[in-house]
């Protein structure tokens, strides 16, 4: 039994004798392919050639194959079938270096190290920018342009309206957001607004107004910056409620019941050329008082469900009160 199987079968008996049939077979295939583009009769001829020569080829091959063992039986007995060599058996493809050789030729050690080191460097050059491209954009360039909500007349004093707008009009409806807005009248000769985000402070579902929504009185407007806003009045708003898990808030956005961990987020605003403009949004723990006289405990904007006060705040990025 040959341990390595190099000579199994022997050099001389290595397959069928040469044959011309494969050439005809190939011509047939080419004929089919050309015929597919040129004409159907050519396909038929090609198919016929392929079948005929394929048959002859297979017959030739199998005859040669089947007759081989018999011829060898008389000459040298049945050949040992060549067993498939598992990868871990047989001789290694390259001779292994003995310790003595490694000591004599430290160059091989150097080449090993150089290959691994260069490979790591090339890998890093490719990987670092790719991973950075995947992760870093999530943390930079997060502002938005000012959001123009039209003239102050849109907002009657002391009444709530539902306002739809776009965070970034250029990016389309996926950035459409909602704020509940109430005009509180003049305070220190400046218009005062209460602007509450509809993003629930539990897990971010849209809170709904507890009042009579009047969709027939909706006003659609186009304002500067490509904004398309819509304003719908709500009569008798007394609370906000979240449809997802039942979080409840009073009309200032303070949590009154359910799973939210803080009050509703709010927007800072500005008056530009007589128009109400939303600037940034921020998070709120609680609000004391109402309307223009409200004292708001402000924090930097954080995600829903994240505590900004109380002992649980140690689990989240530090929030200095602002």
């Amino acid at each position, binding site marked *: 039994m040959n341990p390595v199987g190099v000579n199994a079968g022997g050099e001389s008996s290595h397959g069928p004798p040469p044959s011309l049939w494969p050439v005809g077979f190939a011509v047939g295939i080419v004929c089919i392919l050309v015929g597919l583009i040129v004409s159907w009769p050519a396909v038929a001829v090609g198919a016929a050639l392929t079948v005929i020569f394929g048959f002859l080829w*297979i*017959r030739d*091959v*199998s*005859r040669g*194959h*089947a007759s081989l063992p018999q011829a060898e039986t008389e000459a040298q007995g049945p050949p040992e079938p*060549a*067993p*498939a*060599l598992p990868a871990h058996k047989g001789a290694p493809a390259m001779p292994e270096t003995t310790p003595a050789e490694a000591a004599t030729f430290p160059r091989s050690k150097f080449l090993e190290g150089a290959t691994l080191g260069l490979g790591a460097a090339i890998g890093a050059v490719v990987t670092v920018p790719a991973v950075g491209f995947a*992760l870093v*954009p*999530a*943390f930079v360039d*997060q502002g938005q342009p000012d959001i123009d909500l039209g003239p102050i007349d849109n907002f009657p004093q002391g009444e709530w309206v539902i306002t739809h707008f776009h*965070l*970034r009009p250029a*990016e*389309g*409806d*996926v*950035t459409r957001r909602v704020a509940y807005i109430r005009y509180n009248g003049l305070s220190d000769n400046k218009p005062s607004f209460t602007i509450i985000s509809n993003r629930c402070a539990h*897990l*971010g*579902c*849209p809170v709904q107004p507890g009042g009579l929504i009047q969709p027939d009185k909706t006003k659609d407007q186009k304002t500067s910056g490509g904004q398309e806003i819509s304003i719908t009045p709500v009569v008798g708003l007394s609370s906000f409620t979240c449809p*997802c898990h039942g979080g409840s808030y009073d009309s200032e956005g303070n949590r009154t019941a359910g799973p939210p961990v803080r009050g509703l987020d709010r927007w800072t605003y500005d008056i530009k050329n007589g128009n109400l403009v939303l600037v940034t949004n921020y998070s709120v723990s609680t609000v004391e008082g109402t309307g223009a006289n409200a004292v708001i405990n402000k924090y930097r*904007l*954080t*995600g*829903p*469900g*994240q505590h900004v006060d109380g002992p649980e705040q140690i*689990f*989240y*990025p530090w929030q200095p009160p602002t």
Partner: protein
Amino acid sequence: MANNKKKTARRETIEAAIIYPIDWLEERSGLIGGLRYFLFRKVPGDTNWFHTLGSATLTAFLVQLITGVILAMYYKPDPDKAYQSIRHITDDITLGWLVRGMHKWGASVFIILMFFHMARVFLFGAYKYPRELNWIIGVLLLALGMFEGFTGYLLPWDQTSYWATVVGININGTAPFLGPFIASILRGGAEIGPDTLSRFYSIHMLLLPGAIIGLITLHLYLVIRLGVSSPPWSKEAAGDDRPEPESTARPGLTRPGPRRGIAR
């Protein structure tokens, strides 16, 4: 008699014609031997139907792989077009309803089968030495499979999938310390925007399937290397007799006695 002999000769010819290309491939690659080694390995005599749950899970994954590749030919991961393209697949394209249905319901089948397979391995004690590493790989596969479910759920881009994903991302965001960063990475920003959908799509159809295929390969490699375990009620002794420990030190939890016989 002559007729019979002629038949046999033809049969030999046909067999030779079939065997020749197989031999050709085997001689040059050893792939046929490898395939035989994989398919016809020895298993304990008292394995039963519960041992097929792993193969069933693999089949469910392959169904997801194939239907997913085909769905990707028609789906458009753009906030303005995603929902329309799903409607188009379901309502207009020939057999689209079937392939999408296979992918949608097959997702649940895949997850359920993973849990059944895990329960079998746990209850049969098949996670024990020397198969602990395969249990760990299986747990990673379970996590990746559920992440596939989470990212795939957004793709129809309807109200249910949108708000479910908002809530899902924000649940991740409430995890202590790392949560807010994970949420931002998932969204690709502070807010869900136009890139969030394509981000989920890429994770769902490229990143996670690649990782899962790699881990399944490792999982199967270890199954082949370590063999299939007998059920706990088996009367056959698994593996060879245990050799006497050479050292006199007491084997304990951190120094188990030699158990060469099992890991063949």
